[in-house]
């Protein structure tokens, strides 16, 4: 009775609720594919950004994002409302990226580095000063290489915490560990990054 009266009094609340991730998930579970497309359009940028940081090659990242959304759709009935939908999605994507990285480590990734370099060259350009621009480009390139050289678990922790700026509770759910464990992983990953970046940048 309480819910019925609330619904009758505040339709705005209901309108907001209908558009929430959980409501869209419920609709998609019931067969409304349009609801799932709304979820996809809402989160694809975030998911692609994460995938691209994990795997800095555009086509691979897009394939990973597509696979993550397919798996999420096929397993919607397993999604629990305890976690945010994006957290659950990023967990699926993290597992996919980990598998992908393991396979990629076995083959030569020269082409990957070239693709990342050309992308950097095309997209960089923060300042008008060409010398400063070059220096900034060098720093970003060093950082990218250092990040890519990290083990996949360190890389995941750095991207989640320091690039995507997720909360530790989210990170713990994505990585499947406790909050304390997530903090420890992030700290270790930062140590590893610092140790790799310092020689490249000639600092510290």
């Amino acid at each position, binding site marked *: 009775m309480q819910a019925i009266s609330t619904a009758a009094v505040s339709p705005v609340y209901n309108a907001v609720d209908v558009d929430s991730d959980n409501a869209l998930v419920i609709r998609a*579970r019931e*067969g409304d*594919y349009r609801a799932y*497309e709304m979820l*996809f*359009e809402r989160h*694809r*940028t975030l998911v*692609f*950004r994460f995938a*691209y*940081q994990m795997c800095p090659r*555009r086509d691979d990242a*897009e394939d990973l*994002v*597509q696979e993550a*959304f*397919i798996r999420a*759709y*096929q*397993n*919607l*009935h397993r999604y629990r409302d305890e976690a945010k939908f994006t957290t659950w999605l990023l967990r699926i994507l993290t597992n996919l990226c980990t598998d992908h990285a393991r396979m990629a480590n076995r083959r030569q990734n020269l082409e990957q580095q070239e693709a990342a370099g050309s*992308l*950097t060259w095309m*997209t*960089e350009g*923060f300042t008008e000063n060409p010398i400063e621009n070059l220096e900034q480009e060098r*720093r*970003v390139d060093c*950082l*990218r290489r250092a*990040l890519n050289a990290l083990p996949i678990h360190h890389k995941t922790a*750095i991207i989640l*915490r*320091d*690039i995507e*700026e997720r909360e530790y509770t989210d990170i713990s759910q994505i990585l499947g560990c406790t909050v304390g464990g997530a*903090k420890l992983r*992030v*700290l270790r990953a*930062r*140590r590893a*990054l*610092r140790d790799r*970046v310092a020689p490249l*940048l000639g*600092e*510290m």
Partner: protein
Amino acid sequence: MKRSQKDEILQIAFGDTNDSARIEQLRETSHEAIREIESLRNIKLNLQQLPVPECQLSTERLRDAILNTGLGEKTTSSQPMWKLAWVPVAVLAVTFFGSQMIRSSRLTEPTLMGASIVKEEGPDVAIDFNPTIQDVFPDFPDTEPIIIENPTSAPAIKHSNRKPNYASRSGSSRTVLLVKSEPAAKSALTAMETVAVSTPSALGGGGLPIEAMAPSGVSSDSGIVLIGSDRDSMTGANKAIEVTDTSSMVTGG
């Protein structure tokens, strides 16, 4: 610089700790630490500025991929099969423990064992718990004794040159039911099995009266002989006691 201080600097630089007092203290004491904090902050800033191209994954591509891949388990919300895996295991366990219980109750050594009458009228076995000895073994011929071995299991009848011998063994000692004719022994065995299956505790110490072990259709004028575990000092054979009234006997182990 100590490792703990390096970790603290990492946490300050990446924003996990915002202890301004501690930062001020570091600023006054260690210029190296402040320089490192600034450097790490730059790293974090550069990390967040790493270029990411625009996502070109379209809804149409995703829809085609989902259709090509299949809808998977989306519509199947039933319980997975492995959740039912405990059922055959449970059935096997119940069967095993049940058979073990019956077997152990059969192997329990009774102190006294005998037989009495089960008056049978029709296919069901009726057990008379208070018969007289006249009801037991009505047409027992007076022949050589036959020892019944393992009276609660399948009747394995052994013929020896010396004498027919059916004995029940349990552990080191044995308890033997002696009857005086082979047909009577068979009927006694059948009745005992019926009792053992229908009331497993009867043989295991439940204190069932010995009349419950009676065979059906045994004449009352026959006697039974019980052979105990005590040995005769002269002959070395087990001592036998002939029983004519079994109304006061109970079985138990």
